[in-house]
């Protein structure tokens, strides 16, 4: 019961902040709403038993990436509003409608599948929950089976870092 209440509350916040992010006029406001959204998502993770992911979410997203956005927003310091001259060929309304219809379709699919759960999913659900801590499991996986992707990801980050420096510098 408590879980349900928590979920719906969080879902409402998430979607609400999402709508605000998408619709807010002021970019700084957008960023703030985004942070709130991320925090709520982190709580969803906790609900899903993914504590480590939640921590990461808070640290990296809310702490790192969003700050990056803020910096950029400050740096560019727009003089003329980006939405001043909309291009009429963009048909944003079509996109809006399309997204809504798709959401409906996906939901329909989900509802339909929820009515007839697949056996495999049911079988997996029957197995007991993990006995050790979540972080330990994730760590074991990351540093054993997924070591190479992990290293590749770190390479990617390094490259991204260098690339970002190069791009952001005024004169190379």
């Amino acid at each position, binding site marked *: 019961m408590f879980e349900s209440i928590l979920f719906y509350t969080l879902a409402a916040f998430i979607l609400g902040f999402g709508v605000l992010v998408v619709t807010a006029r002021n970019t700084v406001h957008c960023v703030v709403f985004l942070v709130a959204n991320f925090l709520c998502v982190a709580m969803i993770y906790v609900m899903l038993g993914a504590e480590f992911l939640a921590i990461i979410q808070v640290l990296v997203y809310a702490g790192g990436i969003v700050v990056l956005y803020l910096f950029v927003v400050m740096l560019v310091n727009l003089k003329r509003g980006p939405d001043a001259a909309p291009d009429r060929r963009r048909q944003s309304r079509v996109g809006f409608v399309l997204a809504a219809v798709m959401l409906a379709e996906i939901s329909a*699919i989900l509802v339909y599948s929820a009515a007839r759960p697949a056996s495999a999913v049911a079988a997996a659900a029957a197995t007991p929950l993990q006995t050790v801590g979540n972080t330990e499991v994730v760590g074991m996986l990351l540093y054993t089976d997924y070591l190479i992707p992990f290293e590749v990801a770190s390479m990617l980050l390094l490259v991204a870092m260098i690339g970002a420096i190069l791009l952001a510098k005024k004169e190379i």
Partner: protein
Amino acid sequence: MRFIWLIPLLPAAGALVNGLFGIRWFSRTVSGLLACATMAGALGLSLWAFSELLGLPADARVHDVVLGHWIPPMALQTAHDIGMFQVPWQFRLDPLSGVMILVVTGVGFLIHVYSTAYMKDEAPGGYARFFSYLNLFCFFMLVLVLGANFLVMFVGWEGVGLCSYLLIGFWYEKKSASDAGKKAFITNRIGDWGFILGMFLVFFTFGTLDFRAVADAAGAMPIESAGFGVLSIICLTLFIGATGKSAQIPLHVWLPDAMEGPTPVSALIHAATMVTAGVYMVARNAVLFQHAPHVMQIVAIVGALTALMAATIGLVQNDIKRVLAYSTVSQLGYMFLATGVGAFAAGIFHLMTHAFFKALLFLGSGSVIHAMAGEQDMQKMGGLRKYMPVTFVTMMIGTLAIAGIPPLAGFFSKDEILYQSFLNNRFLWLIGAVTALLTAFYMFRLILLTFYGTYRGAPWARVAAPAAAMEAAAHGVRHPLDGQAQKDDHEVSHGAADVRAAGHAHAWHGPHESPRAMTVPLMALAVGAIVAGFLGIPQALKGANTIEHFLAPSFESHTAAAREAGAGAAAGAEHGPGAAAAEEGAHHLSTAGELGLMVLSVLIAVAGVLAARRFYFTHPELPDRLAARWRGAHALLFNKYYVDELYDATAIKGTVAGGRGLWTFDRVVIDGAVDGSGWLTRVSAWGSHMFDKHVVDGLVNLVGWIAEEGSFFVRRLQTGLVQNYALLMVVGVFAFLTLYLVAR
């Protein structure tokens, strides 16, 4: 005698040193001395070698020296089986080459000495160049006579041709000189064509090129009296070579022109040595020729005709050197007549005596020309007897010798030839006798026109004006090295062929006796012209005919059997199978008959002399009257039977025109075909280009056009707006989702 190879190499060394260093750095004295010293050394070595040769028993007078391989053995098909083609650098000293090296080095040495004075007015560079060429000539001539096989002989054969070319064209700035050199070389080359073909056939037939081996092999073959066999063809082709080198009909045309060279050159090369190479070569292959009697006949006829023709031309020439040149051609004809009738020894004997008196005559004429400051026209001489007594006396000796007045050298050798031809063929004897008459006539014409009568030449300043002398001196000082340029002046003023250097042009004090260095060789040669004949006093005169016996071994085949046969018999009575054949054909005359012939030939000579005296001394107007009366004949003779003109009009013009024609053919037809195929390629390229552009490319363009026009609408989708693309993506996802929903 192991060092006979040094005989040719000494002059070669002299030529090399003079050529490499002398032209640049040596003074006249040094280069002249060097050249004379090498020749003296060669002469000394030759004398030594010859004396050693004499010391050997008569039938073993052969010495071979092999320096090494020239062409190592290689298998080659011959007429019989597969033989080995190989040529060693091999020299051979035998009686024949022994006589020849003495002639070459002896006369050569004297002419070298003579040249030191004669060429004195040349610039030092030209002087050294002259002696370098002269030495080189002696080298090649010695290689020619010492070579033990055809190919080594051919080295000398071609080499003397080269030197002749270089020396005739020594004053290369004159077109006539370089023309004459070229003519000599090319005419010789035509003869060489025959020579090398003969040489190839010799190898093909005998499998060797060695003279001795060839002679031995040929001696074992039957005499080809019935028809033209392989030996006859060999001899004929070799004889073509000999006609080129020895200026016989039809290749005689180069020798008179060769007088463009300096006079010592004419004396050495075109009288004494090189032109006799053909005779030497025929004599060297005596055994071959003896086995080809038909060719012998041809040789004799060609020789006789040449002798007669050249003598008739000599009658009317006015250039002193040209008279001598035709005389040389004529005497060479005699030598071929001798070899043609089988009297090889007589031919070589005449060659030797001729070398002495003709060299003497040429050098004498050089002395005259020297005295006349380059004048060569006998019409403009006369009365020179009192100005240059030594030259006169020596030349007179030479003339008497060539005319055949006993007891001078020419008498014995010429008489021997006439006697032998009388034995062989009376008609040939008749031609020979007529030629002897003509010879005596034109030679005395020469002497009379030159030395007797009154002086008809250009006047000269009796007392040299001091100013002129000083000017000449100053000129000399100003242009000490500019001999060529001064010579040009001279040439213009005299227009003569044998041009001398400037000294005379500026300070000519009239005809005068030549310096010691020129007269001493004259005297030496005069002595030779007197005594050389005593080597061949015929048995009819109680002589021993030494030279014939000495040379005989060189004209026989030396198979073991033949040598034994020869050793057993009395000397000269019975030769090897080859020589015997010639002897057998001849019928011997009694001693009285031989003496009668001798008296007859002396009478003929005297008749010629007397006729000349009548025409040119006592009644000097006669020749002109005769010439006027027989104008056609005179013109024919004066123009040398128009042979030059004939050759020029046919062979030379024909070849050059052929060359031009072929060149046009080359450019138009052959290159035209190449360019034409290039043009065709380009035309077809253009055609396919057009096809490509309008048809193939047209189709491609059509497709492109359709695509372009069709895409004009579609391209509107490409707005460049990122969000439009995103929208399209979403549409796609939407479509898939819808499909999923509908299809499931």
